[in-house]
Every structure is written in C-alpha cells, then in structure tokens.
C-alpha cells in the first residue's frame, strides 16, 4: 500500500493526538524503569511535528516525513528523539524512491537500529517496529498484532537504554518506547491501512 502525502499527514496528526492523550501513562511507564520523561519528551516532539505539518498546504510524502524528522530531532532530546528522528529521516530519504508503506517502515527500523544499535529482544522500541515490519510484509498489520508486539516487551530484560541500569528489575514492565511506537502504528492502521 502507498503512503500518500495526505495520508502521511493524517497519520502523524493522529499519532500526536494519541501521545497527548497518553502522555502521563508513558511517563509513568518510564518512571518505573527509566527516568519518567518519555511522555513529556514525546508530547513535546509530536506537538512540534504538528506545528510543522500544519504549515504544509499540499503535503508531499517525503516532505511530510522530513518535517516530522526535523521536529523530532530538534525538540525531543533524550534517547527517543534521535531514534524517532533517525527513523523518520530514513523514511523521508526512502520516500524519494518509493512510497510503499512496508518499505518505508522497514527503512525507519533500519534508521533506529543504525542509531541505537539495539536488536530484537533488547526491550526497546525495536521490539514493536520489527514485528510491525514483518506484518506489513504480509499485508497483515492489525491492532491485535501491534498490541501483541508491545505486550511482548513485558517479560524481557532491558539491554539497551536507561532501563538496562535496573537489570532484572526491568522484567515485568512494558517498555515505554515500545508503547509509544505502538501508538504510532495504531494511528497508521486507523488513518492509512483501514
């Protein structure tokens, strides 16, 4: 399936709304195994994304993705800023050649892995992105698949990011970045895939 400029914009605005709604929840998740700022980091970032996107009258896929990347990189900070930022930057670059959703999200995942050096099973956002990419390859991305991927971070022991400091104690908690990525993909399902 193709990601048009309009759909891309709608997707990211929906993502912003979800983040704002669940801001406190994301911070609480981060408080448990990190430093408690993931909600405010993402809220600050997606609000900047929204501001950037609202300026675009005739959305063009690569431009929308690039504007999102710029906003995330320059407003979030912390770990999630460069990671989400790199994901969208890679997507923007790829969008110059293809707007196929699977290929775009796969490029995003590569951006995250390149920047953060995390792998599947390290209890990071990668654990949401990787199964999503696989589902998209089979054209089978559903809210259930997303929830399943997010929930699967619970039993994992964190090996990357701030949560790795708590070691064993991270087991049993959801990864906040995996959860915020979950919202990104539910928004994708709602705005683009359905």
């Amino acid at each position: 399936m193709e990601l048009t400029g309009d759909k891309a914009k709608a997707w990211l605005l929906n993502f912003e709304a979800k983040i704002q709604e669940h801001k406190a929840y994301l911070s609480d998740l981060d408080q448990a195994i990190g430093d408690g700022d993931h909600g405010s980091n993402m809220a600050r970032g997606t609000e900047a994304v929204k501001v950037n996107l609202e300026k675009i009258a005739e959305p063009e896929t690569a431009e929308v993705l690039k504007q999102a990347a710029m906003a995330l990189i320059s407003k979030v900070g912390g770990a999630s800023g460069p990671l989400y930022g790199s994901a969208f930057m890679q997507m923007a670059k790829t969008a110059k050649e293809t707007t196929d959703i699977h290929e775009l999200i796969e490029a995003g995942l590569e951006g995250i892995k390149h920047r953060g050096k995390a792998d599947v099973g390290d209890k990071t956002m990668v654990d949401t992105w990787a199964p999503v990419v696989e589902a998209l390859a089979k054209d089978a991305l559903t809210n259930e698949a997303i929830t399943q991927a997010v929930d699967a971070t619970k039993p994992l022991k964190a090996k990357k990011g701030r949560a790795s400091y708590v070691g064993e104690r991270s087991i049993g908690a959801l990864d906040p970045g995996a959860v915020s990525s979950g919202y990104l993909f539910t928004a994708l399902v709602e705005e683009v895939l359905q």
Partner: protein
Amino acid sequence: MVPVFKAKEDKIMKKIINHPSQVVDEMLKGMLYAHSDFLEGIDETRVIIEKDKQPTVGLVSGGGSGHEPAHAGFVGEGMLRAAVLGEMFTSPTPDQILEAIKASDTGHGVLLIVKNYTGDVMNFDMAKEMAEMEDIQVASVLVDDDIAVEDSTYTAGKRGVAGTVLVHKILGHFAHEGMALNDLKSLGDALVTDIHTLGVALSGATVPEVGKPGFHLGESEMEYGVGIHGEPGYRRDTLKPSREIAKELTGKLMSEIMTKKTKKIGLLVNGLGATPLQELYVFYNDVIEELAKYDVEIVFNKIGDFMTSIDMTGLSLTVIRLDDDKRTVALEAPVGVLNW
C-alpha cells in the same frame, strides 16, 4: 495566579520557581543576566558560551539540566568553551549541540565531552555528524565513571557522573595550553579510564514537571550506587553512619583504581544538591581515615556541589588516578569559571 504547584497525588512541590515548564529557560536567563561580563547565550538555543574565545580547541559539554553548576558553571577560560542545556534530565538536541559546536570552533576543532547515556551519546553523535558535514573537525570523549553500573554488552554501559567535571578541568587546561584536537582526544580517552565514582542517596530528586521524587526512600533508608537522574542503585539499605558509607565507597573505588598500581590519587566529594557542606566534610574526614589502609598519596581534592541531581540529598565520591603529575598540574591551574 497559581500560588502553589499541585503535583500528582496532590502533593505540593516546594520549590522557588514560577512554573515547572519554565525552570530551564528562566534559569538560563538568570545566568545570562548575572554573568554577561564573560558569558553569552546563542539566540534560539540553550547554549551558554564564552565571550572571549582563544584560538584553541573549543571544549563543548552539556546534557540534561538539573545538574547545576554542571555544565554552565564550568564555562570559561581554561575549562569549557560552551555548555548545551537540555530539558530537565534530558539530553539536549543535535541542532542545539550543532550551534554550540559552530560557535565554539576557532578553526582548531571542537572536542565534545559526553556523559555515557544512550540519549546523550546519540544526540551528540548526530550533532557531530552534522558538524562534520559543515567541515568542522569534531572529536568526542565519552565519560563513564560510575562504577555502580555493570559494564557489559548487556547494558548501556557505565554512566557518566561527577567525574565528568574532572575531565572538563584537565582537558580544559590542556586545550587552553594549545594542545591539538587529536592529542586532547587521546589524552581524554586514557583519562576516563582512570576516573571512578560511586554515589549514595538519602532521598530522590524531584523533576519540577514530574512533581514527585523519582524514587522514594523510606524514613530510615538510603541507596548505594544511584545515578544523577534518580536511576536506582545497586543496594538499598538502612541509613548508615558516614564512616560506614565511606568504607563501602572507598573500598569499591580503591579496588577499581588499584588494578593499575596507583600511587597518587585525587578525591572529589560531590554533593547531590540538597546536602549541607558540613556533611560533605564529615564524610571527607571518614574517607581520609579509611584511606590510611592504602598505600596511596592524596595529591588533590575538591569538596562541594559540582554535578547535582536537582534537590537530591546524598553525595558521590570520585577517585582519580594522578600518577602522572601533569594531570595534577592541570587540576590545580587557575581557571576563569563560576563554580570550580
């Protein structure tokens, strides 16, 4: 008018601020009002930089806010050229770091001093890549002095804490003396392996926008090995006398530093923000008596608040290997900054 700040659970946060979301910007404005004789800001950023830039390698550091006086209090002749201030406990963003790099370069390149946290590392890396695209020579030194955290491929590695300030001071001195970027980088890479820190907390830190302490310690509890953002430590225990805390920290730190047959060391006792100076000296006294067990000479010390964690009560102890007298000279050299 909102006279009090209701935090979650309806607890009131006792801070002298106006609004939790404005603390960093107002603090920055306060600093620039106060120190415009030798410091300036860069518009649209949260960068604090020396006005008078010598033609030498510029040292740039930074990180989340909440660690004051780090890092802005160490900007000035003989130490940092610029500090980049992130949100509270959150790494600054690459575009801000990039502005600091650009403004700090006098053609001799820029050295980034980065504390080892995933966020800081990635944001400074991105800024470095951007600066290189603009043909600025950039190198970076990663500080990971906190031995409370296991260093393995299964973690994000040791954290950068109070020892970072010693890196600022030593590299700042050599940069000021005209040392080239590559040499500073090699010197820094070796230096960070000789700096070790451990912290203890008696209470958690309250980020203004969160409104409640990052962790809660019971009335008679303390925690060994905490980080400077409220990261949990390696052991929770009942509150111990200073003497026993000194024993535990020096024991762990010395066994780390003695792997190199160290003969001379320096000590940094760092308050975490709400600890009275009198307690830091009581603790220092116990550290010295504890160190009598070891065959080392203490050739440098520093006692006060350098790398804080907002309003946390507790302290950290840093031990640095100073067998090379050049390091000691660098630490003792006069410097034109606010809080060294």
